[in-house]
């Protein structure tokens, strides 16, 4: 019997290595797998490359990982926010490397990795500083930039409901990067609000089929929302 369920966050993230590229789901705090990130802080891995839309909010979650000095480089679209003080300080001190990627290119480069494409021509960023030095091409009258896939060793994502095969559903705008990151990492580790018995999730509404998921740990946050009736 296959079960991808782990009893603890610590066990689920135990083998993340120094130097790993780690995708972290979430858009701001919606969908951020905070407990998995706490587990990663506890794990002690260093020199991480993190892929996330943002660069941390406040002092918890991704911001705490940054603050702990574990991240060598961050690949994101929107680091500067009202509450990105941890990243801001590291960046100004030259202690973290930033690869700034337009949000849609971040998304489609992650998608390309998951789908096994070698590269894509995207119109986003053409003629801007973020495409400097990149190959461009005019195709059918429009200008495009060649962008490479973004893969990861590990993806940490949060979902709403999971089962032991790793099938996932998400909740509202917490879905965001979860489904595409799940496909682009060698090892996808998921924290679920709820784990249900196999067959309890309608096969028509599974957003991430279990093939993209290696490990699931139920994290029963005090403020988690109950399963819909």
């Amino acid at each position, binding site marked *: 019997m296959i079960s991808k369920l782990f009893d603890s966050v610590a066990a689920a993230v135990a083998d993340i290595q120094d130097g790993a590229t780690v995708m972290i789901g979430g*858009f*701001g*705090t*919606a*969908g951020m797998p905070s407990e998995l990130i706490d587990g990663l802080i506890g794990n002690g891995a260093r020199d991480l490359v993190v892929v996330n*839309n943002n660069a941390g909010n406040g002092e918890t979650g991704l911001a705490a990982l940054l603050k702990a000095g574990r991240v060598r480089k961050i690949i994101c*679209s*929107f*680091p*500067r*926010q009202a509450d*990105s003080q941890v*990243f*801001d300080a590291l*960046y*100004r001190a030259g202690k973290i490397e*930033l690869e*700034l*990627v*337009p*949000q*849609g*290119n*971040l*998304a*489609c480069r*992650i*998608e390309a990795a998951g789908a096994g494409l070698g590269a894509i021509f*995207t*119109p*986003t*960023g*053409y*003629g*801007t*500083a*973020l495409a400097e030095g990149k190959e461009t091409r005019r195709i059918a009258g429009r*200008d495009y930039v060649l962008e490479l896939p973004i893969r990861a060793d590990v993806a940490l994502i949060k979902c709403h409901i999971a089962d032991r095969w790793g099938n996932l559903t*998400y*909740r*509202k*705008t*917490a*879905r*965001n*990067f*979860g*489904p*595409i990151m799940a496909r682009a990492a060698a090892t996808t580790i998921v924290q679920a609000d709820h784990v249900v018995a196999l067959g309890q999730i309608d096969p028509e509404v599974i*957003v991430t089929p279990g093939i993209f998921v290696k490990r699931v740990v139920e994290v029963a946050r005090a403020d988690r*929302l109950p399963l819909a009736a």
Partner: protein
Amino acid sequence: MTQDIQRMSRDQLAARVARDIPEGAYVNLGIGAPTQVANYLPPDREIFLQSENGLLGMGPAPAKGQEDPELINAGKQPVSLLPGGSYFHHGDSFAMMRGGHLDICVLGAFQVAVNGDLANWHTGAADAIPAVGGAMDLAIGAKQVFVMMDLLTKSGESKLVERCSYPLTGVSCVDRIYSDLAVIDIDANGPRVIEMVPGLDIETLRAMTGVDLKFTGVQA
């Protein structure tokens, strides 16, 4: 007799933009001032608001106490979903933009060039921490790109320029500028003023911007 220039307020400008959004349009309103446009969309028009973080059919902010931290907009503020709305992931969300499925996006701007180049993500200042978000995708993706901005900076320089000095967001992508002083279309022939606020005349506007402006249907 010269009257004072009746500059539009932010709210007036938002209302002016809202007037031009037709029923059935799929629209993305950028972070900041463009978000205000939602407040002025006529309630009798069904207009579909998209948010880059994965929702279509975005409704207004929920009542106090009804906020859901997992239902937010691109500015990370709590919102609601209308009946008929839907959720999707970031790949699908940006496919909507990049694939030309949005009819209109409304963005703020630091500068717009006479050829429609847009600069709205970075001042280029050495100490600024850059952040681009979805601006570049919206700029090149929507069928029509509306910019909403003051025509002049606080120090009186025109934000409609011959050539952007700030880093670009997109090339030749702006279709129309809604500013506090005038509404200006941009096409292959350059900028063309289609509306001016009361009290403003062609010569004054020309002098303010310093760029070659055409005028259509506006009172001199």
